[in-house]
């Protein structure tokens, strides 16, 4: 047989009281031994469902209603649970997304490895232990005999994912399904894990299915790719061909929407294939409207001026000062942002960028240093009237759209709250009128007013957050990874919206992200952060074309370059 896995005409549906959801429709894909197939699509496309359907781990009430899954020539979709258990682990291994929850926190990793090896191979006794150590070495864990006895929480995220990979390979499977294996990891760790998967699969001639929403990952390690939209496969083919010459409209717009690190466009190309394209809402004429009333005339002060900022967190409490252990989250940070400028803070997780944002807004107390907003020092003088007024001028858009809105309030109340509290409108009906206008302006429409947040998608919720921020008529907008939790297509819309607002209202923007291509598109100047300190501050063009600091160079190297896919093909 030449095909390791053949999925033929698969249909998966989820029946429920409200009607049936067809998660996967007539999907046919195949994988050869030694080949890496990527399945790419946005949330809700059905890609994880396919992975689950192959090993028959669909979450009830999901069922395969049509089609079959042929593994090494045999139809495994009709096997019962007992027979399926022989296949899982031994023939097909699975790697899940979140390494923290896929490992049992109460067992040492050694115990979990021993358990898996005993179940999936015929080894006994000392041979099992030897195999476990072999596996740990193969996935790159140093001092495996010592780490064998460690618990999952004693590892970092990347190391945990390596352990998960070791578990998946324990039974010597022929096929490995990796469901978003690197989504929860940092960019540099991501690179290492993908490299590991690529090397192991070449060595052991495994077939791999990589399920992801990130086209960069696909460009990195996949040989062939299947693009999914709304439950069906819209296009398949070799990675090089799909990325350079996509045929289907959705693939084209999806690739175009991914922010590119090499050139700066004025606006992101938005993916209009989805949901029948954009609906146009009424736009506000900013000069006439309440929203534009507070647009500041030029002032000589810098919008944000930070000097010698320091913040420490106590990670080990003790009664006596000398026994406490501190984590320096922000170390002597100084930078300034001009009015109307777009300033980026980029760094990996733990670099301190979100902490700086919270210090500026006043959510955390400053240990040492000063923060001046339009000349007014706002560090730690919480009760001062002038400080309170200055801090109202700074509003924040948060990262997680699912927890940044009060689930028990209607959208109109959420947005109207600052207007009502500060009585900036002359009457309640005017306040609601303003809310309606704001909702139109951010692209949601005033029909959203009476609804609750849970009725909206992630991107729509971010629009509500933006409208809420605008209702305070701020001069400075801090965006803390506003699109990290969103799909690429939605990201383009939200980022375009932010840019439009910045132009209209002459907002100053502090944009925080770990995603360098997005920073390139959104910001004029950038500061690169690492472990709480600033490595480099430069204009975006200078940073991307000629970085100074070692770390900046390292980060730039990690941007998956889709243009280099062609070169990889030639080399390998």
């Amino acid at each position, binding site marked *: 047989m030449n095909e390791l896995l053949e999925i033929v005409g698969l249909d998966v549906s989820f029946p429920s009281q409200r009607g049936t959801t067809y998660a996967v429709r007539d999907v046919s894909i195949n994988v050869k031994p030694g080949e890496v197939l990527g399945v790419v699509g946005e949330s809700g496309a059905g890609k994880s469902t396919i992975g689950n359907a192959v090993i028959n781990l669909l979450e009830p009430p999901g069922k395969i209603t049509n089609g079959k899954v042929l593994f090494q020539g045999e139809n495994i979709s009709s096997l019962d649970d007992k027979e399926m258990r022989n296949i899982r682990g031994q023939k097909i291994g699975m790697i899940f997304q979140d390494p923290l929850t896929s490992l049992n926190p109460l067992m040492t990793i050694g115990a979990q490895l021993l358990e898996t090896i005993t179940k999936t191979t015929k080894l006994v006794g000392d041979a099992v232990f030897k195999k476990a150590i072999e596996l740990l070495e193969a996935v790159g864990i140093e001092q495996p005999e010592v780490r064998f006895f460690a618990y999952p929480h004693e590892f970092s995220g990347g190391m945990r994912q390596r352990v998960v990979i070791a578990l998946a390979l324990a039974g010597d499977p022929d096929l490995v399904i990796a469901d978003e294996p690197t989504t929860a990891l940092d960019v540099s760790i991501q690179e290492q894990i993908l490299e590991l998967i690529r090397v192991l699969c070449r060595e052991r001639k495994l077939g791999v299915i990589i399920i992801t929403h990130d086209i960069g990952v696909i460009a990195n390690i996949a040989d062939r790719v299947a693009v999914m939209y709304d439950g069906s496969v819209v296009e398949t083919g070799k990675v090089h061909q799909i990325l350079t010459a996509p045929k289907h409209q959705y693939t084209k717009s999806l690739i175009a929407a991914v922010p590119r690190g090499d050139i700066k466009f004025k606006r992101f190309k938005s993916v209009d294939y989805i949901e029948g394209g954009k609906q146009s809402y009424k736009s506000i004429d900013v000069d006439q409207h309440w929203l534009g009333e507070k647009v500041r005339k030029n002032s000589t002060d810098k919008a944000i001026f930070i000097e010698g900022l320091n913040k420490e967190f106590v990670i080990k409490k003790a009664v006596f000062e000398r026994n406490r252990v501190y984590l320096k989250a922000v170390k002597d940070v100084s930078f300034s942002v001009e009015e109307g400028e777009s300033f980026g803070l980029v760094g990996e997780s733990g670099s301190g960028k979100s902490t700086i944002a919270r210090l500026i807004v006043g959510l955390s107390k400053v240990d040492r240093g000063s923060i001046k907003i339009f000349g007014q020092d706002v560090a730690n003088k919480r009760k001062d009237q002038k400080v309170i007024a200055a801090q109202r001028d700074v509003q924040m858009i948060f990262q997680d759209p699912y927890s940044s*809105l009060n689930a028990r309030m209607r959208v109109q109340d959420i947005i109207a709250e600052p207007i009502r509290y500060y009585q900036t409108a002359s009457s309640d009906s005017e306040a609601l009128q303003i809310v309606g206008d704001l909702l139109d302006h951010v692209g949601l429409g005033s029909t959203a007013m009476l609804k609750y947040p849970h009725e909206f998608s992630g991107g729509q919720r971010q629009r509500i957050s933006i409208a809420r921020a605008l209702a305070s008529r701020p001069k400075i907008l801090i965006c803390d990874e506003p699109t990290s939790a969103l799909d690429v297509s939605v990201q383009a819309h939200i980022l375009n919206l932010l840019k439009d607002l910045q132009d209209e209202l002459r907002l100053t923007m502090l944009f925080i992200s770990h995603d360098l291509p997005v920073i390139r598109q959104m910001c004029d100047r950038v500061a690169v952060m690492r472990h709480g300190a600033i490595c480099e501050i430069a204009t975006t063009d200078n940073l991307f074309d000629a970085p100074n600091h070692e770390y900046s160079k390292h980060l730039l190297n990690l941007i998956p370059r889709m243009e280099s896919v062609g070169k990889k093909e030639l080399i390998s």
Partner: protein
Amino acid sequence: MIEKEGTSDKSLLTFFYLKVLFANLSNPMAFISVILLTLIVGCAIFAPFIAPTDPYDLSVVSILDGRLAPGEEMFDGTIAWMGTDGAGRDVLSAIIYGLRTSLIVAISSALIALSIGIFIGLIAAFYGGKVDSFLMRIVDIQLSFPAILVALVLLALLGKGVDKVIIALVVVQWAVYARTVRAAATVERHKEYIEAASCLGLSNSRIIWKHLLPNSISPLIVLATLQTAHSISIEATLSFLGVGVPITEPSLGSLISNGFDFILSGAYWITFFPGVMLLATVASINILGDQIRTILNPRFTE
């Protein structure tokens, strides 16, 4: 699907009641308990209209009716379905009125303890740090004392009376509510919508009452139901021991206590029927609380 957020409170309540009712159709125990509870609450509310006699109207009660067996006829012609006690009072009527007292005491104390508990729990969760530690230590101390003991001591100091019983029950119960609210509120406290409210410049009290409170009270619905059942049984214990409600406003506990003397002489019904009623009330409230918890659990799929 389960909770339609956004509908008005009244329709939410009726919708909820019907939902609870029909959700229990498949479970006969639960169905019976919901029906039973409706009857009990109905009895308690409409007591003067339902009870065959008024057992505390001294002009009607006659000692000649004393210790009649269930089903026998009283002096003025009404049938004592559950017999009469030593003084000639119809046990059925006494139960109906007694239910009323028991439920009033239990529900009032639950509501007051709930309010105090919410207040303290929210303050502890919002401010955190030393305030949280201090308040929660008080809660811990309160919870480490056995409930009956505390209530007994309090009532010994305060004396008899329905209001004093309510005070004692509040003192015993508030800590459980405080702890539960503080746990739920601490989770919500760190979510981004609270931080956003802070960014908007809202005052602390507005954030606590308008944003933190509505999102922290869902575990309380079940807790309040179960605590109500618990306080009915505590109150019954106290009355049985003689320190609870006064003789003029008996509750189920004191009825049981009254009848205790008669068990050995054969007039079992004076203790037995109030006892069964107490059991039925507490059990059905507990089952109901359980069902509500299952229904409100978002993982409860069709």
